[in-house]
C-alpha cells in the first residue's frame, strides 16, 4: 500500500469545511477531476471529468473513534481519510487528508499527489468563501 498525506489551512470554522465534506453533491466544486456525483448518503458514484459514462462507485463513511470522514473508491480501491482540526479557537481549520493507494494502482501516486494538493487548497478556499 502506497500512502501520502497532505493538509491545508482554511480561515473558516470547521463547520464550513464540514458542510462541504458531508455534501457529496458539492464535491465537483472542489475535488479536482470529479465532474458529477450521483447519490447521497453513504453510497455515491463519482463520474470523472471527461468520462461521463465511466462510473466510479464510492463509499462515504465516518469513523467514530478518530473523527474521520473516509471516502473509498470501490473500483480503484483508493481511499481518502479526511480529518478536521479546529485552529485559533475554532475560527480556522486544519484540513488533513491521508490517501492510501493499493500496490496495483501505485503508478497513480504522482497524479494523485497533484490532484489532492489542489483539491485540499480548493476545499479550504471554498470554505472561506462560504463562511
Amino acid at each position: 500500500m502506497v500512502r501520502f498525506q497532505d493538509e491545508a489551512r482554511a480561515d473558516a470554522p470547521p463547520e464550513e469545511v464540514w458542510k462541504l465534506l458531508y455534501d457529496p453533491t458539492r464535491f465537483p466544486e472542489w475535488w479536482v477531476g470529479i465532474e458529477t456525483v450521483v447519490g447521497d448518503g453513504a453510497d455515491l458514484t463519482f463520474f470523472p471529468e471527461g468520462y461521463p459514462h465511466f462510473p466510479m462507485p464510492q463509499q462515504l463513511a465516518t469513523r467514530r473513534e478518530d473523527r474521520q470522514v473516509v471516502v473509498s473508491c470501490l473500483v480503484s480501491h483508493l481511499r481518502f481519510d479526511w480529518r478536521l482540526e479546529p485552529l485559533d479557537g475554532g475560527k480556522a481549520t486544519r484540513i488533513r487528508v491521508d490517501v492510501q493507494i493499493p500496490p496495483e494502482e501505485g503508478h497513480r501516486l504522482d497524479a494523485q499527489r497533484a490532484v489532492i494538493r489542489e483539491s485540499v487548497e480548493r476545499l479550504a478556499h471554498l470554505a472561506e468563501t462560504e463562511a
Partner: protein
Amino acid sequence: MLRVQLIGEFRVELGECPIPVPRSRPAQALLGWLALNPGPHARAALAARFWPDVLDASARANLRNTIWVLRSAIAGDTDHLVATRDSVGFAADTLWTDVAEFGRLVREGRAEAALELCRGDLLPDLDDDWVLEARDQQRREAGEVLVRLAREAEGRGELDRAVAWSRRRAALEPLSEDACRDLMRRLSAAGNRSGALAAYASLSDRLRRELRMATSPETRALAERIRQGPLSEGPPPAVGEAHETRLCPDLPSLVGRTPELSVLERAWADARAGRGGVVVLVGEAGIGKTRLVAEIAARASGNGFVAAGAGLDLDGAAPFALWAELIHGLVAVAGPVPADTGWAPQLALLAPGLHAAAGGAPAPAASPELERARLFEAAAAMVEWAAARRPCLLVMEDVHAADPASLALAAYVARRAARLPLLVVITRRDLPPRPEVDALLDRLRAGGVPTREVLLAALAPAEISRLAESVGLRSPAGVERVVRVADGNPLLAIETARALAAGSPEPPVTLRAAVRATAGGLDVDARALAEFAAVAGRDLEREEAALLAVPGLADAMVRAVEAGLLAVRQGRVAYRHALLREVMLADIAEPRRAWLHEALAEAIAQAGGRRRAGEIAGHLRLAGRHDRALSHLVDAAADARAVAALPEAAGFLEEALLIRDDDPEIWLALCEVEAWRGRHAEIRRAFDRAATLIGSSRPGALVEAHLRYARLWRGALCEPKECHQHYRAALGLIDEAGLAADAGHAEALAGVAWSEAVAGAVEAAEEALRDLHRLVGRSRPSDLLAHDVGVARAHILIRQGRFAESYGPLIAAADSARAAGRADMVYGALGWAASAAGAAGDFDRALTLVDRALGVMRQAGLRPLEALLESARASILARLDRVADARDGVGRLRDLAELLDDGRLTALAAHDAGMVEMTAGRHEDAEALLAESLARSAPVSRPLTRLARAEALALLGRCEEAEREVTETALEPLLPSDFPDTLVARLARVQGLIARSRGDRALAVRRLQEAARGWLRRLDPVSMGHAYSSALIDLGRVPVAGLVEPQRELERLTVELEELGAEVPS
C-alpha cells in the same frame, strides 16, 4: 435527674423524691411516650399522634393542656420537660428510665442486673397501640436475655439455674411454645420429668383456653419423649430455628461495643420508621463483626424479618451465592410466597425450590442483559414484598469474599433502602482491599442511601477479661494471660480462654495453636467432620453431611459443637467463625486434603444440590481429578449463563478448555458467552477453533455451528454483515454436501433474507424469501421462523420506503415472537412497526403500537426495554403536540432510570425532556436539559442533540454559545444513525437562525435557503428507509425519536424565509 419507672409500677421521681403520676390518662400516656422517646418532638406530630381524630387546632389545644398538667405534676419543672413554641420533650441527659437502663445493662453484659428491672409489664394500665408494641418489644428483649442466661447456665452444667431462667421466660411468654419446650427439656434433663410434663399440660390448657389452639406437633413429640423416659443428650438447638437466620446459636456474651451497637440500633429504628439504610462493619478477622451482627439480628428478629447470606471464598462457587442464601432465608421468615408473584420463578434460578413454592414456570430466556435486569428487579421486588409486611434486616457477611455478581445485586437492592423499612448490614475485613466493595458503597452514597461505616477496633483489656470470664475461665491469672495473648481480638480471647478453661496448662500463643489444641482433643469422627467442613468452604447441608464418610455423624457433630469448633445453623453444619475454618484448613496436609476434596465432591454430587456444579469441579480439581471435573465445569458455565453471570461462565469454560481444548462444543459455548460480553476478537477466535475442530468431514455439524454463530451476531451483537457471511456459509455447505432440507436450512434462508434486506440488497432478500417459500411449502413454520420472515419482509418494504405496508408484517412478527415467549423480539418488531407508522406520518397508530409493546414489556418484567419504549412514546406525544402527556412519559422514564440505577437512561430522560420543552417553546429549559444529556453521554445522536441545543440558544439570542455548539457538531464523530446526509441542511438552518438573531438578514436568508435546498434533495422516502435501518444497528433501538421529516422541515423553512421576505428554493 428525673427518674421514670415504666416497667411494672408507673413511678416518677425528681431528685430522690417520688412525685405523683398524673391521674389523667392522656397525661400518663404522654409522659410515658416522652420518657420512652427522649429528645424534642414537634408539637404538630405529637398532637396528631395522641389526638388523631380531632381537628388540628383542637389536637394542639389538647396537647397544650396536657403539657400543662405534666408540668404541674413535676412541680413546674422546666429543666427536664423542655417545651418551646414548636417542640416538647424530655432532655435526654437528665432523664433516667428503667427501659433505657435495661438496654444499657444488657449491652454491658450485666444481664442479671438488667432482669432485676423487669418487675412486670411495661405501662400495664395503658392500652394504646404504641404501648402494646413497646410492651411486646420489652418482653421480647427480656426473653432473649433469659434464653441466653439459661443457655450459659446449661453450658456450665448449672441445670437448676438453667431451669430457673427457663421458668422465668415461660412466665414472661406464657403462650410461647418455644419457651415451654426449653423449660420442659431442662426440667427433664434435671430429672424433673413430672415438672416437665406439668409445664406441658399447663401450656396446652392455656393455648386451648385463650387461643383455642392445640400445641404444635414438635411440642407434643417432646412431651411424648419425656413420658417415655429421660431425654438423651442431643445437639443444642440451632440458632437458625430461634432467629430464623444463619447466625451462630451459642453466642458468647456481647462485651463492649456499646457505641457500635447504638449505631446499629439507631439505623434499625430509622429503618422501622421507613427510612432504611446501610451499615458497614469493618474490621480484622475475629474482631467481633459476626457477634455484633448476631446481636442486632437477635434484637431485630423481634419486630422484623431477618435474613443473612455470606460471601464465599470458595473455588467454583456459583455466582450470586450470597443472594441464594439470603433469598432462602427471607422467604423462610416472610413466606408463604404469594401464588401470583412474578418474582419467584425468576429467583428460582438462584434459589432452587422457590419455583416450586411459587408454582409458576420460569420466565422465558431473553438476552443475558435483559435476564440480569429481570433477575435484579425480581430480587428487589422480593425484598419490597417482605418489607411491606414487616421491617427487614438483611445481613451480608464477609462481602470481601463475595462474588462480583452478588455485589452488583447488593448495590441494586440496597439503593431502595432509603425509602423502605429495610436495613442492610454489611460486614467486611479491612484487608486485603476489595475495590468492588468500595465502589458499591460509593454508589450507594451517591444514590442518597444513608450509609454508615463502623470501624471495629480492638477491645480494651477490661472487656477482654469479661469475655474470658464469660466462657467459664475463672482464675484471675488465666484471665490475665488471655488479655496478654488476645491483644484486643475477641475471637482469639475466647479460643484462648476456652483452651485454658479446658485444662490447657499454657495459653496457645496464636489462633492456629488454639484451634490445633481444640481439634487435637477431638476423636477421629469429629475431627473428620471438622475437616470436611473446613474444605467445604461453606456451611454443609444436612443431606451432604449425611453422605460424608463420617461414621456416627450425629455423635461426631455433637462433639465438634461441644468443642466450640462447629455450630449447627438451620440444619447446616458450619464453623462457629469463618476464621476458625481458615485456620483448620491450613492445618490439613496433603494427601489427606486431596482425599477430603474428592470425597466431598462425591457427597455434594450425590446430594443433588442444584447450582453446585462449579463447586464440585473445584473440589475435583483440588483433588487432582481434572478429568472428572470437565463435565461439571461445562454445567457450571451453563448455570452461570442462566443467571447472566457472563464473566463467571467464561471462566468456567476457559478452565474446562485448560483440561480439554479439542471439544468444539466447549469452544462454541465460549463463543456464545463472549458474544454476550461483546468481545469481538474472542468470539472469532473461539468460533474459528470450533470450526477447525469440527472439520469439513462433518458438514451437518458445521452448518449448525455457522447458524449458532450467526444468531449471536443478530442477538447479542447486531452485525448484519457478519450474520450474512455465516448464513451464506451455512447455505453453501448445505448445497455442497447435498444435505437434506431441514429447519437449519430454513433458518439460514430467513437469515439471509433479513441480512440482505437490512444491508439494502432488496432483490437478494426477496430471492431468499422465495427460496424459503419453496422449501417450507405449505407447512406451518415455527414461531421463530415466522418472526424472522416477517421482519425480513418488513425490512424489504422499509428499504423501499413503503413504510405503511411494512408494519403489517412487523405486527405479525411480534405475534409470532410472543407465541415463542420472546418478549425481547416483540419489542424489536413492534418498535419497528411504530417507527414505520411514524415515518408514514401516522403518529396515532405509532402511539398505539408503542402502547401495545409497553404492555408486553411490563408483563414480561423487561424494565430496560419498557424505559426505551417510554422514551419513544414521549417523542411521539411531543410530535402530536401533546406536551403535557409527553412530560408525563418522560417522568415515567426518569422513574424507571432511577429504579434501574441506569445513568444512561437518566441521560436519555434529560434528552427527551429537552426535546419536549423545545416543542413547548421553553427554550431555556430545553437547552439546559440537552446540555445535561450531552454531558452525561445519553444514548442518542450527539450531533443532532447539539444542533437542537444550538437552535434553542439561537432562539434565545445567545448567539456565541449557539455558534460554539455548531462548531462542536462538526467535530462530533458520526455514524449512519446520525443521518449525516441531513446534518448539512440542519446545520445550515441553525446558522440561519443565528444570523437572524444577530439581525444579519442577508446571511440568514443565504443559510436558510442552503438548508431548504438540502431538504429538497431528501424528499425521497427510499433514502430515509436506508437511514432508519442504520439506526437500529448503531443505537440498538428503534428510531421513533429520531424520525426525519423532510417535508415538515421544508414547511418550517418556508415560514422562516417568508418572514424574512425571501424566496423559497424549489
